[in-house]
C-alpha cells in the first residue's frame, strides 16, 4: 500500500486522483440514493446532451486559468457569436460554412480584444473581461432588440445538424463524442505542445518566462483567442440542439464553467492545472442539479450543494499543495 502511495504516478497525479475519487463518491451517492433513476440510461443521455455546452468552454478556459488570468466575458461571446450564427444561417438559407467560419472568427476577434486589453493596454484580465462581458451582451441586445431567432427551417434535418447533435445509434449524442475528442486533443496540446508548455511557464512566472525567451504577450493573446473560438463553438452546439437563438444565450454558463475548472484542480495562481481534472469537474458540476433532484431533495438545495462541492474540493487542493512546498 505504502509503495503504491509513494509511486511516481501517484505523487505527480494527486489532484487528478483526488478529483476522480470525489466524482466516484458522488455518483455512488446518486446510484444508491436514486437507483430508479441512475440504473437507467435516460439520465446519462441527458448528461451527455447538456454537459458539452459548458464543458467545451471549461476545457478551453483551463488554458487561461493556468496562465493565472481569468476570462469572464465568454458568456457574452457565446451570445454575440450565436446571434451571428443564427442570423447568417437564416440569411444564407442554411449555408453552414459561411455561418460557421464568420461566427467563430467573430469569437476569435472577441478573444483577441480581450488579449490585447490585457497585454498591450495592461488592464488586469478580471477587469478587462467584465468590460467586454457587458459590451458584447449589450451589442446582442441592441442588434436582436430582445427577440430570438428560430433556425428550425434552415438547420433541422441537415447534414450539419447531424454532425453536431444527432444521436449515434439513437443513444449517444454527437456533441458528447465531440466533447471527448476535443478534451483528448486539448489535453495533448496542454501537456505536450509548445503552446501548452509556454502556458505553464508564463502562468508560473512571467518574468522568468520572458528571460527564457518566451513571448509572454503572444502566449496570453493566443490563449484568449482560442477561448473565443471555443465559446463560439459551444454556442453553435447549443443552437443546433435547441434550434433557437435567444438573447440571453450563454448567460447561465459563467459559474458552472469556472466552477468546473476550479473543482477540477487547476490552480487560480497559475502555472499548474489539469485538463483531465476539468473534464471530471464538468461531470460533477453538470450532474449536480439532476442528481440532487433525483435524490429527492428540493431544487433549492442545488446551489447550496454546488457551493459545498466547490469549497470542499478547493480546500483539499490547497492542503495538498501546502504539503508539497
Amino acid at each position, binding site marked *: 500500500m505504502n509503495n503504491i502511495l509513494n509511486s511516481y504516478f501517484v505523487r505527480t497525479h494527486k489532484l487528478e486522483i483526488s478529483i476522480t475519487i470525489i466524482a466516484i463518491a458522488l455518483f455512488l451517492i446518486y446510484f444508491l440514493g436514486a437507483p430508479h433513476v441512475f440504473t437507467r440510461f435516460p439520465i446519462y443521455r441527458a448528461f451527455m446532451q447538456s454537459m458539452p455546452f459548458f464543458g467545451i468552454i471549461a476545457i478551453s478556459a483551463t488554458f487561461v486559468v493556468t496562465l493565472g488570468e481569468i476570462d469572464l466575458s465568454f458568456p457574452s461571446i457565446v451570445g454575440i457569436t450565436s446571434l451571428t450564427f443564427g442570423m447568417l444561417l437564416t440569411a444564407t438559407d442554411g449555408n453552414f460554412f459561411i455561418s460557421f467560419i464568420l461566427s467563430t472568427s467573430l469569437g476569435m476577434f472577441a478573444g483577441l480584444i480581450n488579449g490585447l486589453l490585457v497585454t498591450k493596454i495592461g488592464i488586469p484580465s478580471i477587469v478587462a473581461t467584465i468590460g467586454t462581458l457587458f459590451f458584447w451582451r449589450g451589442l446582442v441586445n441592441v442588434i436582436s432588440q430582445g427577440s430570438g431567432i428560430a433556425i428550425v427551417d434552415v438547420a433541422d434535418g441537415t447534414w450539419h445538424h447531424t454532425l453536431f447533435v444527432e444521436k449515434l445509434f439513437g443513444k449517444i449524442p454527437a456533441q458528447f463524442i465531440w466533447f471527448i475528442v476535443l478534451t483528448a486533443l486539448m489535453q495533448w496540446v496542454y501537456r505536450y505542445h509548445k503552446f501548452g508548455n509556454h502556458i505553464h511557464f508564463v502562468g*508560473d512566472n512571467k518574468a*522568468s518566462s520572458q528571460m527564457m525567451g518566451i513571448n509572454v504577450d503572444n502566449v496570453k493573446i493566443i490563449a484568449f483567442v482560442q477561448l473565443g473560438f471555443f465559446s463560439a463553438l459551444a454556442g453553435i452546439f447549443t443552437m443546433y440542439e435547441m434550434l433557437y437563438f435567444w438573447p440571453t444565450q450563454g448567460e447561465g454558463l459563467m459559474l458552472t464553467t469556472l466552477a468546473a475548472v476550479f473543482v477540477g484542480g487547476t490552480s487560480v495562481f497559475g502555472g499548474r492545472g489539469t485538463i483531465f481534472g476539468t473534464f471530471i469537474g464538468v461531470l460533477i458540476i453538470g450532474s449536480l442539479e439532476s442528481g440532487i433532484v433525483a435524490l429527492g431533495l428540493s431544487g433549492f438545495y442545488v446551489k447550496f450543494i454546488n457551493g459545498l462541492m466547490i469549497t470542499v474540493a478547493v480546500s483539499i487542493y490547497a492542503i495538498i499543495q501546502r504539503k508539497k512546498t
Partner: protein
Amino acid sequence: MTIELLRLENIYKNFGAVKVLKDINIKINKGEVVALIGDNGAGKSTLIKVITGVHRPTSGKVYFNENEVDIKSVAESRKMGIEAVYQERALCDQQELWRNIFAGREITNAFGFLDIKKQRKEAEKILRDYIGFTSKAITVDSTVMGLSGGEKQGVAFGRSLYFNSDLIVLDEPTMGLSIQETEKVLNFVKGLKQENKSAIFIDHNIIHVYGAADRFIILDRGEVVGEFKKNEITREELVQKMIQLHESGKIKVEA
C-alpha cells in the same frame, strides 16, 4: 593576443523620462571575464538586459564579433551565442527540469509538439555530465521548487554550457548561496576562461568578483565611472574605491 567579442558604443537607455544608461562604452574580449560593479540602481541589470535582448537600447551601437548587431529579443541573442544565467529567476518553480532546461527553445516536431524523449534524454545528459549531479533525488522529472539555490544555479549553468554560448552573462550568481556552493560557482566562472569563453559577471560581493574577474567596470547612476584591470589594482584598493564612490559620489582615478 586579444580578440574582441562584444563592444558597446554610446549606449543610452531611457524608460520614459528616466535615463537609466548614459553613454556606455565597453568592450569584452574573447576568454575574458568582466565584472560589472556598482550600487543598486547603477544600471547594471539594465545594461546586461540590453546585451541579452530583454531591452533594446534607446540609442547606440552593439558590435558582436566585430559586426554591428540589433538584438531584438532573447531568442536572437541566444542564436548569436549570448546566454544569460539569471540566478534562479530564470527557472519556473512548478515545472519539471526537462521542461525548464528547454523552455523557450523546445525541441519539437513539425506541428510544434514536444519531442519529449529527446528533451528528457538531453536534460539527463546535462544533469549528469555538465552539472555533475549524482544525487538520485534529483531527476529530470523533479520540479525546480525542491532544489537548493546552488542546484538551481547549477541547472542554469549547465544549460548555458549545453547550448555552447560564447558569452555568458551572470546576474548575481552567488546571491543566496552557501559558502561551498559559492565556491563551485566561482570555479565554474574560472573554468570558462580555459574554454576561451567570455563572461560578464554582476555581483555585490567584491571579494567574489575580485577572485573571478580579469577586469572591473564600475557603474554609477547609469555611467561608467571607472575601469581597472586586475593587475592594476589590489582587492583592498578596489574596496576603497567603492567606499569612496559611495560616500562622495565621485571616484578618484589616479593618473
